[in-house]
């Protein structure tokens, strides 16, 4: 026999149009605190992201989906240098690690701001542009494009609806 109680009902957070603003605040805090830099919105961003690196962190639970950060290798190396100091961010693996950790923190900070309970995966970083990301479930997205030294950096929250 199964017994359903009120507290046992699954709780799913619905996509909110205001999440774009919250994502912008969450990302802004992460870049300022961890890299000491302010990333303003990118003026007139292209519709399709063109990036060499994609960092991904999965979300599961009340909020189910994925957070991604996409940027160029150059941007990732410079961000790693800001986080670690010149010279400390020597190799491409450090730059990938840095962008993955930034994605992890943006996801965690966003989650904290909307006060929802979900689990975060460890970050994954893909190098290259020739791939497509598909999910079995319908999704809704919140995307912001920030400017780092003139180059765009895309942050996208994909939520299963």
């Amino acid at each position: 026999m199964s017994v359903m109680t009120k507290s046992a009902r699954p709780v799913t957070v619905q996509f909110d149009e205001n999440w774009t603003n919250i994502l912008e605040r969450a990302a802004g805090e992460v870049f300022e605190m961890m890299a000491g830099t302010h990333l303003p919105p990118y003026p007139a961003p292209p519709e399709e992201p063109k990036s060499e690196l994609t960092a991904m962190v999965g979300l599961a639970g009340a909020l189910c989906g994925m957070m991604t950060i996409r940027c160029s290798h150059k941007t990732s190396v410079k961000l790693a240098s800001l986080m670690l100091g010149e010279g400390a961010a020597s190799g491409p693996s450090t730059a990938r690690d840095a962008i993955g950790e930034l994605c992890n923190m943006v996801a965690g900070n966003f989650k904290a701001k909307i006060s929802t309970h979900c689990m975060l995966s460890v970050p994954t970083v893909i190098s290259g542009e020739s791939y497509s990301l598909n999910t079995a479930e319908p999704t809704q997205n919140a995307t912001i494009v920030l400017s780092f030294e003139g180059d765009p950096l895309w942050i996208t929250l994909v939520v299963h609806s």
Partner: protein
Amino acid sequence: MKKLKVLIVDDSSVMRTIVERALRSAGLELSEVLEATNGAEGLIAAEKGGLDLILSDINMPVMDGLEFLRNLRTIAAAKGVPVVMISTEGSEAHVVEALSLGARGYLRKPFTPEQLKERVMALLGVLQ
């Protein structure tokens, strides 16, 4: 204050470096910094003994930070060593669980070096 032997457990080398730099910039003198990329490696380092402070992430492959804390309690050589958890997971449930498993402090990422300094100094001040 004596020089500290510290263990930093995090799967990100960038975060391990940031944490070590924050400790040094806080004015702490470190005699040795051990690094582990997951909880299982952290336990092996803790078994060797002599640690003064452990800082650990939660979301890690192989063994996460909460499981690390759970197992750390069974290691005699790590008895009484203060542990500060540093994680993107900042929910009340995570904090309560970490503290109930023996963590002495909790810091949510992102953090500033000053915030890490405050946590660690308060902890070490209490221990003096």
